[in-house]
Every structure is written in C-alpha cells, then in structure tokens.
C-alpha cells in the first residue's frame, strides 16, 4: 500500500509537476480543497504558484486557512512549497495588507534589483547543522519573493541570490521549500521521500 498525499488546490496553481513528483517518490497524490479531507489526511502538501494575495483569499474562502494552521500547530506532516512557504508567514511585499497564515513571524520581501528577478535556475543549498530532512545540494528555484531571515526555532537551508535567503526550513514534521523539490532531480526526490517518512507520532 502506498502512502496517500493530499495536495491542496490553491486556485490557479499548476499541479501536474507536483503530482508527478510525488508519484515518482512512491506516494499516491490526491488533489483536494476539502477542509475535512485536509484535516484528516496524514500528509498534506501546500503548493503554490501565483500571487500571495490570490492564494490567501482562496484558502480563506475555502475555509482552509484555519485547517492548515491547525495542522501546523499540532506538528502534523505538512510540506509547503514555493509560495506555500511564504504563506506560512504573516505578510508579503507582493500583496501588502493581506494577512498570511501567520504561523511563522516575519514577511516575504522582493528579491533585490541587482540580481535577475525572478530567480530561475539551480542554486546550491547549504543546510545548517541539525537539519534532519534538508541536505546540501542543488535545487531548482523560480521565485521573485523570498524570506531573508531565519525564523527562530526552525532549522534552515539557505542560498545566495543577491542576498542570503531561506531555501528550506524544517521543524518536526513540517517542511517549507522555497525551491521546487518536484523539479529538483535526485535532490528533490530524496527530500520528498524523507518527508514522506515523517509520522504524526513523532510529534
């Protein structure tokens, strides 16, 4: 029996790559926007392509914001990808005035103008000591906004693109990736597999 992964539909985000990625990692992905299913799922992925404001509006309207906060607070296996990672925070310069999930203090800021924006391509992650899921290696990024401060209480991997930014952050069964693990070759595949092995009882 393969592990079922619930992938949250966040509006217009293209999910084909995420779904294919989790199938390659050996899981059975399932797309949902049902609060009950997301509350009951063992593993939930919050993907995110598109704008911060539109994604939050969608999550609030579908009644998913509270359900996701509940999962995060109880350390239930949850992975947030790209914009999904930024949604964990309070705000973003992308859509000023819109409140994020607010689980982690801080806000996403625009990448500096001296470098190419969006950051499109492979960048080398340096994982800090104590990371259990995140390792060193190259991953694929596609972002214009970023988190530039390590959130306290989380173990992080970082990359440099004009500034040093959070590439990935982990705490217990929670994992946020600014890059796209589903597009990051063997590095991403191994990371997805490690996260799939996290279990609620480790909470």
């Amino acid at each position, binding site marked *: 029996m393969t592990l079922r992964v619930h992938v949250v539909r966040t509006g*217009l985000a*293209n999910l*084909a*790559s995420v779904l*294919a*990625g989790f*199938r*390659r990692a050996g899981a059975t992905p399932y797309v949902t926007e049902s609060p009950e299913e997301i509350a009951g799922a063992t593993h939930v992925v919050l993907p995110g*392509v*598109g*704008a911060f404001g539109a994604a939050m509006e969608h999550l609030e309207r579908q009644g998913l914001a509270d359900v996701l906060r509940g999962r995060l607070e109880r350390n239930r296996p949850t992975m947030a990808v790209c914009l999904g990672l930024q949604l964990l925070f309070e705000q973003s310069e992308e859509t000023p005035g819109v409140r994020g999930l607010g689980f982690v203090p801080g806000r996403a800021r625009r990448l500096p*103008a001296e*470098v*190419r*924006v*969006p*950051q*499109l*391509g*492979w*960048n*080398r992650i340096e994982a800090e000591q104590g990371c259990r899921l995140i390792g060193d290696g*190259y991953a*694929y*990024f*596609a*972002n*214009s906004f970023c988190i530039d401060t390590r959130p306290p209480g989380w173990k992080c991997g970082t*990359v*440099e*693109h004009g500034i040093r930014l959070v590439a990935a952050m982990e705490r217990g069964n929670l994992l946020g990736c600014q890059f*796209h693990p*589903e*597009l*990051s*070759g*063997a590095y*991403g*595949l191994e990371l997805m597999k490690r996260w799939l092995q996290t279990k609620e009882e480790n909470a």
Partner: protein
Amino acid sequence: MVTNRVIPCLDCRDGRVVKGVRFQGLRDAGDPVELSMAYEKQGADEMVLLDVSATPEGRGTAVETVRRVRENLSIPLTVGGGVRTIENARALLEAGADKVGVNTAAVENPEVIRGIATNFGSQCAVVALDAAHKEDGSGGWEVVTHSGTKRTGKDAIEWARKVVEFGAGEILLTSWDRDGTRSGYDLELLRAVSQAVNVPVIASGGAANPQHLLEALQAGADAVLAASIFHDSEYTVGEIKKFLAEGGAPIRL
C-alpha cells in the same frame, strides 16, 4: 548564486522529435520522452519542448507529449510553439509544463503576456524573442515572427523591455541570422538584451560547439539553449557543462 543553465531543446511534431535547419527538410530524431530522460541523466538543467506542428491535430498531440514527458522528467519543462491564447497556455500548464513560451501571439497582442503572468505567475511566462539584424542599415535588430519569415519593424531591445513590463519572467532570445548556421550566437544582440532587462535571458540559435556556449554566458546570458549540438551526439550535456565550469561559468555539476 544561481547557476547558469544548459537547456537542450526538442523540436516536436506529431509526438516525435524532429530536426532540420529552419524547419526545412525535417528528419525524425526520436521519442521526446526517451530523449528528455537521457538529457536529464546527462545533467541537463531544464528541457524546452518546441511544438513545430503545422496542424490543429498536431497541437493536440503536443499536449499529450507534454503529459508523457512530465510524468517522467524531474527537472523543469518549458513548452512553446503555437501558444496564442491564455487557454493554450493553460492546457500546456495543466498537462505539466512549468513555463510556456509565447512568440508571434505576443507580438500581435502583448496582452497575452499579461494574461499568462496574471493568471499563472510571471515565473512561467517566457517570451520567445526572435530577432534579426535590421535590413535598412540603421543598425540594431528587429523582431521577426512566423519562423523568421515576417519582419515586424519593431526594435528588438525596446520590445525586450516592453515584454518585461507586460509581465514576462524570462526571455528566450533567438538570433534568426544565426539559427541553424552553426556559427555561434549573436553576442552583440545577447549583450544588448541582457543589459536592457532584469529577467533571465536564454541564448538560442547558432551554437555548434562548447566554446559558443561559453561565449554566450560570458556575454550575459543566464542560460544557453541548443538542439543539434546535443542531438547529433557530438557532445553530451555533461561534457559541455564540465567545459563551461572549467571556463569559469557557475555550473551545477
């Protein structure tokens, strides 16, 4: 820092990879899934799939090809060729493209770029900018469309700035004077465009050897795209990346 990308390009027609100079005298070059997988294994940083089908039936096949490639490929996939509307873009993205390239449609109606950027994000809106030297001797380059057959009179550098204003997240720059000629990229054009915009620029058209690719990166390109250099198995992607890294380019090895 983010590394320079090496991107093999597959021209696809009716579910098969084809090759030919300027789309004349097309020859069968293999299965898109098998070739994509082989390039990923060699170390390709991304794949571009260009649909060169001439018919609506062929376009339908392209969506199916994207689906097949996506299921297997674990690196980014850009798809272009014949994208005219937001609906075309949506169909390709839903099938598994991570980015879509627009060319002619963007020139005729730049709002298509804005539509793709607004609906799906700038990071997946690639504008394919085909340029050729102006014929009136005034210097500079103009935008060309319809596989290089139609000259638009639009200044290529101004157009590059404009597509970024409209929301393009990346420019795929092809020199139509050089495409298929194996004489190297148009470095002057590359320098001018990459200085004019802040989004990443992919160099395309004219590469015959690793030195050409290195020159493009040194001229300011963020990525290099090539087809025949890989298909003819003259060099593997891995050999080329090693050469570029030894030449001082930031490369994922």
